[in-house]
């Protein structure tokens, strides 16, 4: 049987911080051009998973393949080449606070791709407009922005280089519902118009339904369910059912003491 090489292939991924075993044998395959949303409880390791794929955290066990190439353990220079394929929106935006907003967005273009500054600035302003931020914001420092604005600048930075693979860590958290929808559409556009493969994390099920082809649920370090977005309501999986309906009772026990 022949099939296209998956864009991202994770096999038996293990990550631990001391005794805290966060990922425990995670498998996930994402095809080129697909949009996958990962859901899962707070602290279940979703952000860790993204950082692991990006090589920012080293797994203790397992394999990561990008376009069929094993990228689990790469040296600095090789890593930089692979990074060209990625765009990442960090959960906390992670803007460079020594640089104005537009330079944050243009950073990858100027430093990574060696683009001339005026060109990079033009693209940065374009991307900022796409996330609903005007030219007046471009000259501000990140410290002068609201939380939602930072998030949107981070998003503009993630898509500025038109990467093949884009990770969005909670892109709509902290945004109003209208702006949330705008951002969802932008993420969908990245896939439909640029052909990017996207992997997003969200707690907002409405948003997940809008941007996902496929939804994967992370629980106790593994993907416990994975299927097309249309089937999520009849997954037959008790974890998924409990999660998407937001019930406190069910197989997922939150570590809170009942008063």
């Amino acid at each position, binding site marked *: 049987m022949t099939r296209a090489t998956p864009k991202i292939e994770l096999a038996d991924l293990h990550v631990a911080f001391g005794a805290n075993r966060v990922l425990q044998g995670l498998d996930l395959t994402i095809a080129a051009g697909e949009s996958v949303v990962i859901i899962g409880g707070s602290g279940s390791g979703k952000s860790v998973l993204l950082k692991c794929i990006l090589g920012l955290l080293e797994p203790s066990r397992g394999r990561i393949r990008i376009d069929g190439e094993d990228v689990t353990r790469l040296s600095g220079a090789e890593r930089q080449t692979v990074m060209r394929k990625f765009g990442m929106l960090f959960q*906390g935006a992670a803007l460079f606070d020594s640089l104005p907003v537009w330079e944050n967005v243009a950073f990858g273009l100027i*430093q990574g791709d060696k683009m001339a500054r005026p060109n990079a600035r033009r693209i940065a302003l374009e991307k900022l407009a796409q996330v609903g931020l005007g030219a007046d914001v471009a000259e501000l420092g990140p410290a002068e922005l609201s939380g939602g604005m930072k998030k949107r600048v981070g998003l503009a930075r993630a898509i500025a*280089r038109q990467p093949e693979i884009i990770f969005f860590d909670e892109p709509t958290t902290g945004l109003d519902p209208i702006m949330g929808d705008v951002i969802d559409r932008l993420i969908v556009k990245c896939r439909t118009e640029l052909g990017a493969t996207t992997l997003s994390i969200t707690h907002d099920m409405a948003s997940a339904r809008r941007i996902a082809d496929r939804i994967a649920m992370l629980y106790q370090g593994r993907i416990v369910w994975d299927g097309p977005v249309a089937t999520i309501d009849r997954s037959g999986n008790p974890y998924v059912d409990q999660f998407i309906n937001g019930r406190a009772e069910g197989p997922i026990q939150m570590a809170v003491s009942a008063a």
Partner: protein
Amino acid sequence: MKLLVLIGRTVLHGFETVGSLSVFSGQALAHGVRPPIYLRLIGMQMLEIGFYSLPVVGLTAIFTGMVLALQTFNAAARFNAESTIATVVVLSMTRELGPVLAGLMTAGRVGAAIAAEIGTMRVTEQIDALTTLSTSPFKYLVMPRVIAGVTMLPFLVLVADIIGVMGGYLVSIHKLGFNPAAYLKNTFDYLETMDVVSGLVKAAVFGFLITLMGCYQGYHSRGGAQGVGAAATNAVVSASILILAANYLITEFFFAR
């Protein structure tokens, strides 16, 4: 038994730190020689480390030179060797006090600032973001600071030497009543090139140590504001101790024969 475990753990931890510090400096150096070189960032760091440290280094130097003249006068008077003041001041400043005091003062000023800045970037994931934008944190953050440290510390020390000698001169002439021409003659007659050069070599090494420790501690900081604070403290303490140790080794290299 407990004691043995404690000793063992401390020794292991020590080796671990030395190991990771070596890897860190190795990477910093490997990145330093490969393009791209960020000239603009190097320039900014030179300004920050060199130019803005001038007041603190200058003040340290002038008071040290003044005190040195007073103390030497007081001590030398006991065996009628007052004429050696100029020589003692200039040799102490160029060989030892200029580099060591400038080094320690910049370690406090610059080392802590570097560790805090890079540490904050670490805990707010800005360093991770750099990597995802195909930019090596070693090239972008570490190298400009280390280069600026290695080049600017000699400059600072040269300034400290001159100001320190001037401080000694002021006290000797105006307070102790020396003859200006004779004092200057004594200053330069016994000064050898090696005295100044050894001091500048020390300065370059200290500049490397200060910036390296600042970057290393910041880069490896973890756990929010508290971690960043600890990184800044560690950067200053470790750089200061390394400066004093390196000072001895370099002095031995230049003068112990």
